[in-house]
C-alpha cells in the first residue's frame, strides 16, 4: 500500500497537509486501494517514520514538506525498492525519489493581481505565519502581482509570530488582520495555515475580502473570500500513488507552475459574485503571459530578496 506522512502542521491543517490527505483519499476512492498515514510529533521522528513504513513494505511513500529531505536522504538508499515522493523540495540525486515542487510565487502573483483589482482603498495586506523563506516566496509573488496591476499599491505585511506555533494562533491571525484593516487594507492574503482561518474570519467580520491559500478556502466565508491560491498538493500525491499503481512511476523532478496547473487561483460559486468578467479576462491574460514567459515572476528563494 502507499503511505503518507504529514508534515509538522498535522493532517487537518485546512491547507497544505490536508491537501495531501485529500490527494490520498481521492486515490483511495478512485481505486479502492487503501493507504496508511501518520502524523509525527517532532523532527526526531521523521526518519523513524519513513523507515518504519519502508520496512513494512509500503510504497510509494509520500512526504509532503521540505523538512523531510534529511530523513529521506538517510532512509531511501537503504530501501532501493521503495519509491518515495517528496513535495516542496528537490532531491534529484537518489534513484528512487520523485520530487515535486510548486511555483507558489506564480500562483501568488495571480491572487496578488486579483487583490489589486478588487481593492478600492489601494491598500492590501499579506499575513505570513512568521518570517520564513517559503512563506516569503508567497508574499513576494503576491507583491509582484499586485504591483503589476497597480504600481502605487500599498502592501502591508505583518507576521503573526516567530516560529511554527504561529500556524496555530488564529487569535493572533485575527488581530493581525484587524490591525491591517484598521490601516486601510481591504484585501488580505494569508500564508498562515491554521492561523489563516482567523485572518479570513477577521476579513469576513469586517466586511472586506480575504484570500485563502493551499486548498480552496472560498467556501469558508462565501462572498468574503476573494479567491484562494491553490497549490495542488493533492494532485501531486494522487499522481504519485496513481502512477505507481499503473506502473507509470518516474523518478524525476516535477516543477508544477501555472503551466502545469499545479498552482492557480480558485474560482467557484462562492466567489462568483466577486470576480467580474473583466477581472477574469485579465487573469487569463496574465496566466498566458506567465506560461509563455512574457512575465517572469521572481522567486524569493532564489536570492532571499524581493524586487517589489
Amino acid at each position: 500500500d502507499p503511505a503518507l506522512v504529514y508534515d509538522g502542521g498535522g493532517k487537518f491543517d485546512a491547507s497544505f497537509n490536508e491537501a495531501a490527505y485529500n490527494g490520498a483519499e481521492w486515490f483511495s476512492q478512485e481505486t479502492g486501494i487503501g493507504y496508511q498515514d501518520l502524523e509525527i510529533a517532532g523532527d526526531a521522528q521523521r526518519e523513524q517514520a519513513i523507515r518504519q513504513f519502508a520496512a513494512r513494505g509500503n510504497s510509494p511513500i509520500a512526504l509532503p514538506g521540505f523538512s523531510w529531505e534529511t530523513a529521506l536522504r538517510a532512509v531511501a538508499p537503504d530501501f532501493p525498492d521503495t519509491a518515495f515522493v517528496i513535495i516542496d523540495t528537490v532531491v534529484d540525486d537518489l534513484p528512487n525519489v520523485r520530487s515535486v515542487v510548486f511555483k507558489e510565487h506564480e500562483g501568488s502573483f495571480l491572487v496578488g493581481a486579483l487583490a489589486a483589482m478588487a481593492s478600492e482603498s489601494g491598500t492590501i495586506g499579506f499575513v505570513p505565519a512568521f518570517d520564513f523563506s517559503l512563506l516569503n516566496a508567497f508574499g513576494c509573488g503576491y507583491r509582484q502581482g499586485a504591483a503589476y496591476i497597480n504600481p502605487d499599491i500599498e502592501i502591508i505585511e505583518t507576521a503573526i509570530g516567530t516560529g511554527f506555533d504561529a500556524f496555530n494562533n488564529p487569535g493572533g491571525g485575527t488581530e493581525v488582520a484587524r490591525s491591517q484593516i484598521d490601516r486601510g487594507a481591504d484585501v488580505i492574503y494569508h500564508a498562515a495555515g491554521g492561523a489563516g482561518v482567523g485572518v479570513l474570519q477577521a476579513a469576513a467580520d469586517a466586511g472586506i475580502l480575504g484570500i485563502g491559500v493551499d486548498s480552496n478556502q472560498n467556501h469558508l466565508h462565501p462572498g468574503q473570500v476573494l479567491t484562494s491560491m491553490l497549490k495542488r498538493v493533492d494532485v501531486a500525491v494522487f499522481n504519485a500513488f496513481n502512477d505507481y499503481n499503473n506502473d507509470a512511476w518516474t523518478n524525476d523532478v516535477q516543477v508544477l507552475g501555472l503551466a502545469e496547473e499545479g498552482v492557480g487561483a480558485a474560482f467557484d460559486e462562492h466567489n462568483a459574485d466577486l470576480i467580474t468578467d473583466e477581472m477574469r479576462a485579465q487573469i487569463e491574460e496574465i496566466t498566458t503571459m506567465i506560461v509563455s514567459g512574457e512575465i517572469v515572476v521572481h522567486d524569493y528563494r532564489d536570492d532571499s530578496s524581493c524586487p517589489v
Partner: protein
Amino acid sequence: MDAILSDLISLLITTIRVSTPLILACLAGLYSERAGIIDIGLEGKLLGAAFGAATVAYLTGSAWIGLIAGVGVSLAFSGIHGLASINFRGNQVISGVALNFLAAGLTTFLGATWFARGGNTPALSGDARFGAIHFPFARELSGVPVIGPLYSGLLSGHTILTYIAFLAVPLTAWVLWRTRFGLRLRSVGENPKALDTAGMSVMWLRYKALMITGTLVGVGGAYLSTAQAASFSNNMAAGRGFIALAALIFAKWRPFQAMFACLLFGLLEALQYRLQGQDLPFIGRVPTQAMQALPYVLTILLLAGFVGRAIPPKGLGQPYVKER
C-alpha cells in the same frame, strides 16, 4: 492630526481586544494564588475552555451555552488541580504542568475524533458566536471628532465578554477588600493556619477560590474561540496563560495593577503588529522578530527597573498540612 488620533484609537482598540483574555486569565490566577495555590495551568484551562466553548456553541448554535460549557471544562480542570494540590498535597507546579499537557492532548484528540478536522472545530457563525455590542448612538456619534472614535470605536463595539473582563477588575478589588470572602481568601494565601485556628475550613475556602478561577479563565477561553476567533484550533491559547501569569506577578497580585499589566502586554502586542515592516525614525527598518520580541524585552526591563521585588502571598505553593 486626525490621522494620528485615529491611528492611536485603533491601536487602543486592538489593545483592548488582545488584553481581554489576558485580563480574564490573570484575574483567575489572582484568585488562585491569593488563596495560596500556584496556577501554572492557566494555559491549559484557557485551551480546554476554548475547546469546550467552540464545540458546544457549534453543536447548539448558541454562544451562551458554549460559554457555559467552556466554563464547565475549566472548572473541571480546576477541580483536578484542587484534588491534587488541596486534598493530596501534591506539587502545584507539576499539577499545572500536567493540566497543560492534558489540555493540549485531549482537546486535539477529542476534536479530531468528533469533527475529523485535525482537532479544529467547525467555523461558528451567527448566534454561535459572541457579536459586538454597540452602544446607543454609537453609529450616529462616530462622525464627531475625538468623541466619536473614542465612544463608538474604543468603548462601543466589543463583545460582552470584553465588558465582563473589564467589569471583573473592580469587582475583584471589591471582593478582595470589602467582603468577608475576600478577607478569608487573602488570609488563606498568607497564613492558612490563621484561618484554620479561627475555625474555618482552609480546604473549602481554597476550593471556592479555585471555582472562581475556573469560571474566569473559562470565560477567557470562550473569548478566544467564540468571540475573537470563530472556531477552536490546536493550541490556540498560544502562551497567553503564561503571559497572564507573568502579568500577575508583575502586578504583585493586585487586580487593578493586573489589568494595567495585561493592557501593557496588549498594547505592546498591538504596537508590534503595527510597527512591523515599517521604518522607524532614527533606527530604520527593524527585523520583524525584533519587533515581536519587544513586549518581552520591555517586560524584563520594566521589571528590572521600576517594579521592584514582587513578594508573593506567603503561603503560595505550600500545601496546607493539617496534622490530626
